[in-house]
């Protein structure tokens, strides 16, 4: 049972990789997810991901209110810092 984490931009560097599988026993709400990220990666990464500047996409669709996310087995969750494109 796992979800997929995707770290874009500077978050990749902080997370140590652009993506990782993330073991789940049961669906995780946003607060629990951030707590797990703080433990398994770093409080800094968790803080950044909690900030308004980082957007979240769940299964390829942008999430308007990330507080309402429930992460389940098989999901892909992407953390999107401010873009700096082109």
């Amino acid at each position, binding site marked *: 049972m796992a979800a997929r984490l995707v770290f874009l931009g500077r978050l990749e560097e902080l997370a140590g990789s652009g993506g990782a599988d993330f073991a789940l026993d049961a669906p995780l709400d946003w607060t629990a997810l951030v707590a797990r990220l703080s433990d398994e990666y770093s409080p800094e990464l968790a803080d950044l991901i909690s900030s308004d500047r980082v957007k979240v996409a769940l299964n390829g669709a942008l999430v308007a209110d990330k507080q309402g996310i429930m992460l389940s087995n098989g999901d892909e969750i*992407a953390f999107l810092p401010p873009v*700096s*494109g082109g």
Partner: protein
Amino acid sequence: MSDVRLLAAPFDPAEELRAFTAAHIVAGGIVSFLGQVREGGGVEALELKHYDPLTLPAMQDLAVRVRDRWVLDGLLVIHRSGVMAVGEPIVLVAAAARHRRDAFAAADFAMDHLKSESWFWKREKVAGEWRWIEPRAQDFEDIGRW
């Protein structure tokens, strides 16, 4: 109608423009913007990361908005992802229109929105070290014009 591409490998902007121009002979004018990895500041390479589920669909949405706003005969949007060397093209936008003003405005608008809203994250290699580039205030000023 629009040609929107996200490419992982180098492309030839001159040949792309040649083909686009030949395909739009009813257009009197074609405005293009080419962004390339510029030489200077010790930059050795540039990398753009994208996120597959979002990046190309958002570029396609942008093309639709541009086509809705200006009367164009054709619109071309090509954007690179991956690692690029100095001098390599990053982005090519071309707008073909009967009226010059439409072509200029459409290309300008498309570039402002590609720069500030597209799902790309950029890092540069300087003195062998990669560093992430933060968004520039100028990009938000540019987009505020529209």
